[in-house]
């Protein structure tokens, strides 16, 4: 893989005057409007997708702030209520000695979202500056697209805990408002990554904005 960047030059459909379907791969003469196989609209390079990428990314970033500030869980044990945020929950787990699980939660709710913001912004900036990408940029994109949904773990943990721990006076766990904004943040960044046209990563410099 080390030499992947110096691999043989590849003829793209666009360079051949053709347009390939982003869904099923069938090729048509440039200018064809829709794929006759799967009905998808044919766009050689979707520069407009970048606007959607930025909009959803920004929305995700905005709701990620309250997700970290407000409590994710409200635990009531023997009449005393304790609220914990996402990071607070991680510290609680470390306190209980569950380092491994604390790591899973920390990676899923802090490391993945933050690196996702940075990675998507970085890839989109490169397209704006019309720098040609290499296979490592493409793999970064694939990784971001694959890993994003796993951030939802923490929302599910809160849902399960709240359903399970309802023992009246002894112990009760209820969801906090951060659960909503965190779920929204994950969803928005997933839409952002899905809107990205990966073909732009490879050959932005030849592209004319459509």
């Amino acid at each position, binding site marked *: 893989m080390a030499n992947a960047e110096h691999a043989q030059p590849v003829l793209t459909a666009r360079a051949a005057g053709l347009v390939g379907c982003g*869904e099923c791969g069938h090729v048509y003469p440039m200018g064809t409007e829709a794929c006759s196989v799967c*009905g998808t609209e044919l766009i050689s390079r979707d520069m407009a997708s970048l606007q959607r990428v930025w909009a959803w990314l920004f929305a995700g970033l905005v709701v990620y702030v309250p997700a970290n500030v407000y409590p994710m869980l409200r635990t009531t044990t023997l009449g005393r209520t304790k609220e914990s945020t996402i990071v607070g929950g991680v510290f609680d787990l470390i306190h209980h000695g569950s380092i491994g699980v604390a790591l899973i939660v920390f990676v899923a709710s802090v490391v993945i979202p933050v690196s996702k913001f940075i990675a998507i912004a970085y890839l989109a900036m490169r397209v704006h500056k019309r720098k040609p990408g290499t296979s490592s940029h493409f793999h970064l994109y694939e990784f971001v697209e694959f890993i994003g949904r796993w951030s939802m773990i923490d929302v599910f943990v809160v849902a399960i805990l709240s359903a399970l721990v309802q023992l009246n006076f002894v112990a009760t766990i209820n969801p906090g408002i951060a659960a909503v904004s965190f779920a929204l943040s994950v969803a928005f960044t997933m839409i952002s990554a899905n809107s990205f046209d990966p073909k732009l990563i490879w050959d932005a410099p030849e592209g004319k904005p459509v």
Partner: protein
Amino acid sequence: MAYHSRMTDSLSDMIACPKCDALHRVPLLDKGAEAKCVRCGTVLMAPRDGAMTRIVMLSLTALILMIAAVFFPFLKLSVQGLGRESSVFDAILSFSDGLMLPLSFAVAALIVVLPMMRFIALIYVFAPMALGWAPARHAKAVYKLAETVRPWAMAEIFIIGVAVALVKVAGLAQVTLGPAFWAFVGLVIVTVLKDNFMCRVTVWQTLNTRSPS
């Protein structure tokens, strides 16, 4: 395999990688072989023996497991003589007060509705073809829907969430796993197996050649 020189081939002999636009000549593949894009490594074609029958069978299995997983008791918590059983359905309803209600719908969609929708869609698309019939009406649209829903079907993530939740309450109380938990684990394994049999470009080609035009 990359397409380099002549421009005389007809367009139907060529395929453009959906991820990087590299142009390839459609290769003749043996069953079980795989064709990958020369530039980005995306799997372009992967014809497999009996893939359609397997997808239908696995989707059907997943659908039955899902019904069991939703309504049987999932986990049981007991502490100082107090016990509480909850099903997946309870987990969904846990966000059901006030502001949290939309989240309740979202969780229901992510772990039950969307995965189930995908299974039904895949059965609808592949069952007639597995039997050797022409694809059902609107099979293409239904398959497209199933592919759109794919990243949002999060059953496997839910299972990891359950594992984390178990560790969190382990100190607080005793937790027993119910039958629905195992149904859900089975469901996740079946889903992963099924997705391994599906190659998007191959499916589109089959749908296209078998459709009456």
